[in-house]
């Protein structure tokens, strides 16, 4: 079996945008205790800003700050954190994101540390 290796594909007939293959940035981390990355791709660092507030810095900058960003965080102090939580599921795109940094947080009336947070970012160039 042969393996096809590409970084992006482009629509041939209408000259549409280039679609990059897979998310360019993926990060999951533990925001409690000793804050640490679980898994990451396209990330150079995670910054623990304060209780429940973090930001991810990318290995390489996106070309614009309008890339798609989606974050998730889990329920705090609950055995249910291991499941995708209804309480803390989903996330807004960070208003403060730049081409190299995206912010994310755990929030429930106030900022709270979460045992599992995630961020995925994509850009179609």
């Amino acid at each position, binding site marked *: 079996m042969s393996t096809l290796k590409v970084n992006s594909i482009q629509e041939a007939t209408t000259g549409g945008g280039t679609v990059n293959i897979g998310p360019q940035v993926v990060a999951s*981390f*533990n925001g*409690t*205790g*000793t*804050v*640490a*990355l*679980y*898994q*990451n*791709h396209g*990330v*150079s*660092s*995670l*910054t*623990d*800003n*304060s*209780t429940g507030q973090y930001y991810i*810095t990318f*290995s*390489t*900058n996106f*070309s*614009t*700050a*309008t890339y798609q960003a989606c974050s998730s965080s889990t329920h705090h102090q609950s055995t249910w954190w291991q499941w995708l939580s209804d309480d803390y599921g989903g996330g807004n795109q960070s208003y403060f994101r*730049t*081409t*190299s940094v995206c912010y994310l947080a755990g929030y429930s009336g106030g900022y709270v*540390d979460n045992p599992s947070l995630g961020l995925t970012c994509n850009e179609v160039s």
Partner: protein
Amino acid sequence: MTKQSKYRVIFDDPDHLDEPTKVLVPSQNWLDMAMAGGLPPIWVYWQLQDDEQKAIKEGRHSTFKHDPEKHALQWTAPRIGPLTEEEAMEYLVMKDLPRRCWAEEHNRPMFKIVRTEQVPSDRTFRNAWEMAA
């Protein structure tokens, strides 16, 4: 959990000294790449940061797009060669910390590279953390 770096960077933002001390956690994947010689010269990132900061100051961040040639240098600029883990941490400070933390003089250090175990794991009073002298 993936392999973790033995280092952390604790830092204060000189423009927001009322905020708690921040803790930067390096990606071990990124450090491995740095130690394998996969990084471009640091000015490649500074150039992009400068252009974006200019756009933010001029109120055109929502339509800002990096110059394609400068943006491509992240992949096309000649690599700087393998770094030690300590050199990679210094590079990361210059890449990921606000430049005002390390490039300007202050009456005390604004950042420290520490070992992971020196950062408290009890976060009960996280918002009161301050960098020790």
